[in-house]
């Protein structure tokens, strides 16, 4: 069964700084997702990573996937207050058409002015 671990759980960082959130998963996963959740809101899809070495960027966020290390990272560049949210990674477990997402615990990111 797929297990997904995220760290750190909590992250406070100053505006303008860079930081990385790490997502490790336990078994082969053929897709890795990153989502954002604002307090009291639903999940917003950020990235889908499908292959080893995949890198996707949107604004100040960049996600990458290393399937050999079973590791995905979400890198934040020059953080701004608007990026404060909880970020989840999720692994896809697809087997003969079965599909479900296994989520990490989430990283609550607070950007301090």
């Amino acid at each position, binding site marked *: 069964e797929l297990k997904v671990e995220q760290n750190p759980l909590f992250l406070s960082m100053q505006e303008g700084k860079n930081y990385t959130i790490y997502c490790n998963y336990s078994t082969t996963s053929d897709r890795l997702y990153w989502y954002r959740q604002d307090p009291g809101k639903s*999940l917003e899809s950020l990235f*889908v990573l499908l292959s080893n070495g995949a890198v996707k960027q949107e604004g100040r966020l960049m996600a990458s996937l290393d399937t050999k290390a079973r590791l995905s990272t979400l890198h934040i560049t020059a953080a701004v207050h608007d990026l404060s949210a909880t970020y989840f990674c999720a692994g896809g477990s697809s087997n003969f058409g079965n599909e*479900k997402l296994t989520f990490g615990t989430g990283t609550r990111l607070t950007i301090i002015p």
Partner: protein
Amino acid sequence: EAGVTQSPTHLIKTRGQQVTLRCSPISGHTSVYWYQQALGLGLQFLLWYDEGEERNRGNFPPRFSGRQFPNYSSELNVNALELEDSALYLCASSPGTRPGDTQYFGPGTRLTVL
């Protein structure tokens, strides 16, 4: 294009009661997923429906059940409510289950069991 919609937004029930939550997927999406986000337990997969059939379920007791209608909307039923069922219930839809088919989430139904 309308996103995933869920109703009701909030619900308060007492132990032992039954509840039905509803979800309408994005137009053209055939797969509907239900997740539970309980405090301290994170997001957990509940059920997956595709083309009207239950395809997979998570580690939840049988009192959690649901169905998918011909128009691909879905209901989640929870019988004999327990206090620990208090959570945000999220519905998601996807166009299929191919790699890259993202699951898009609705706003959720917050269930409080007293």
